[in-house]
């Protein structure tokens, strides 16, 4: 499912003294099956932007097209559109509510009016996808660890079989192991299901490791757009808008200033290690 955003503007509290331009003339295209990282500091408009993707917020002006269809053109299509675009908010575990893990995940499919068999199939495959074992199906979601709760909440969205999955800071507040587990599963979902994934994150390290394309948003505008290689080499531009690149990229930059002939576009631990080794061998 491709996403096209045309001249999107969003004004909060329009017509009052508190009116604020949250999004300013956004134009972008996200290809089907892409894995996109959305970065920007707090208040830059990231969350406002992603909430437009399934019409939780409506544009003040402009359009959002999913496979060419304007999602706000026909109200009766809204339910279908929200099924196609799954949004996982920050701290999604706060939205768990049912008695058991299984029931919680089946809530969406049940409301979609699916047959028992279809519900079972979807719930089980969604839970398997996020690595929740069948032994946990009948447990209360509130007995699980923080990382497990969050994965159950994500399974609830996956059970709707979305074609676009938007995750807002899925690893926030988790410890390093919990973070790696969740992000590796997101990567796997992207690969096996072929869905379009949009990942909102503050962690440049995570973004660098996972995504194909990066969108950088600042003051409600898309200011940079490109592959991780293109974006993370723009250290100065990123810093100007209050962002940073990875620690490895900073180390490479500092070494270049000290006379190391390292390539400009390296930003992961392994790439920097290899480049340093090459450089030291030459001497």
């Amino acid at each position: 499912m491709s996403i096209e955003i045309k001249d999107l503007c969003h004004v909060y509290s329009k017509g009052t003294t508190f009116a604020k331009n949250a999004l300013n003339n956004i134009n972008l295209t996200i290809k089907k099956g892409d894995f996109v990282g959305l970065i920007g500091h707090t208040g830059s408009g990231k969350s406002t932007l992603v909430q437009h993707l399934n019409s939780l917020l409506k544009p003040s002006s402009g359009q959002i097209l999913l496979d060419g269809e304007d999602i706000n053109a026909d109200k009766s299509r809204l339910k279908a559109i929200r099924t196609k675009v799954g949004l996982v908010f920050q701290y999604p575990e706060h939205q768990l509510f049912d008695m058991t893990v299984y029931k919680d995940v089946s809530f969406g499919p049940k409301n979609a009016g699916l047959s028992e068999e279809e519900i079972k199939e979807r719930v089980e495959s969604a839970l398997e996808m996020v690595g929740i074992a069948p032994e946990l199906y009948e447990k209360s979601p509130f007995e699980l660890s923080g990382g497990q709760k969050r994965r159950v909440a994500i399974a609830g969205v996956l059970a709707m079989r979305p074609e676009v999955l938007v995750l807002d800071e899925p690893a926030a507040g988790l410890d390093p192991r919990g973070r790696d587990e969740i992000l590796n599963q997101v990567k796997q979902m992207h690969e096996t299901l072929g869905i379009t994934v949009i990942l909102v994150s503050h962690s440049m390290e995570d973004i660098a490791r996972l995504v194909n394309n990066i969108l950088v948003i600042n003051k409600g505008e898309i200011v940079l757009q490109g592959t991780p290689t293109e974006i993370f080499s723009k250290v100065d531009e990123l810093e100007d808008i209050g962002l940073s690149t990875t620690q490895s990229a900073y180390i490479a930059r500092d070494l270049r200033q000290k006379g190391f002939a390292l390539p400009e576009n390296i930003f992961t631990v392994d790439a920097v290690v290899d480049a340093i080794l090459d450089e030291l061998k030459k001497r």
Partner: protein
Amino acid sequence: MEFIVKAENLVYKYVAPSSSDENSAGDTTDAGVPLLALNGINVGIKKGEFVAVLGHNGSGKSTFAKHINCLLQPTSGMVWVNGISTADEETIWDIRQSVGMVFQNPDNQIIATIVEEDVAFGPENLGIPPSEIRKRVDEALATVGMSEFAGNPPHHLSGGQKQRVAIAGILAMRPDIIVLDESTAMLDPNGRKEVMKVVKQLNEEEGITIVFITHYMDEAALADRVIVVADGKIVIEGTPAEVFSQIDELKAIGLDVPQAAEIAHKLRNHGINLPQGVVTPQHLVEELEKCLLK
């Protein structure tokens, strides 16, 4: 050596609700499995020290932090703050006044509708005269760099600004120790930097003892000492340089190391002669520069 916080054989046991019968949990021990959240912690924190505590979720690090200001009391063993045992009911309020805590979620800690009123809440409850409160609030807000927001409603502040207001509220109580329990976890990189800067400054300029719990290794690398907790015990302890050199041990218990330490480790494995204890980017760049000149 005089310790401002000291724990000896600290054990904390709690009973997890049993999965089959939630309603009876809590009243009998056979309703659930007793868990040792802390299993023999021995540690001394010196006055003016900046200690970072690392550990995966469920390791017991927050449970330990809550013992420092009597939110929890030991099942067995002892904790002393400023030489006073935390188990003594009589002196709980003295300890709470000298130990301030900053929690993870900025939105859960601010109670007033105006920034300066929130900062005044603590001293008001201590029965301090209004003129003195005024002075303390102004000073506290200036210290965390939030004076210009004194009259603002807090809900328009960023996460980092809210955490700084929470810290100001503690400063107005004139604490000896500030415990930050993952206070940067919900912040963006700028917010994290703001909070880190204020915490470093309070430690270095005001001499306040800091206990800093975090999952961010680059923050822990700035502490005087790092304590790693796993399964309720202290498993690794030392300067950041000593702790972050133990890459394999840290990874085995599910923790990260700063990227600079990881790069140094991998280069060493490839036969590059780098000293142990390289954990910050600056240090790594310096050492590699030496390699280049050889």
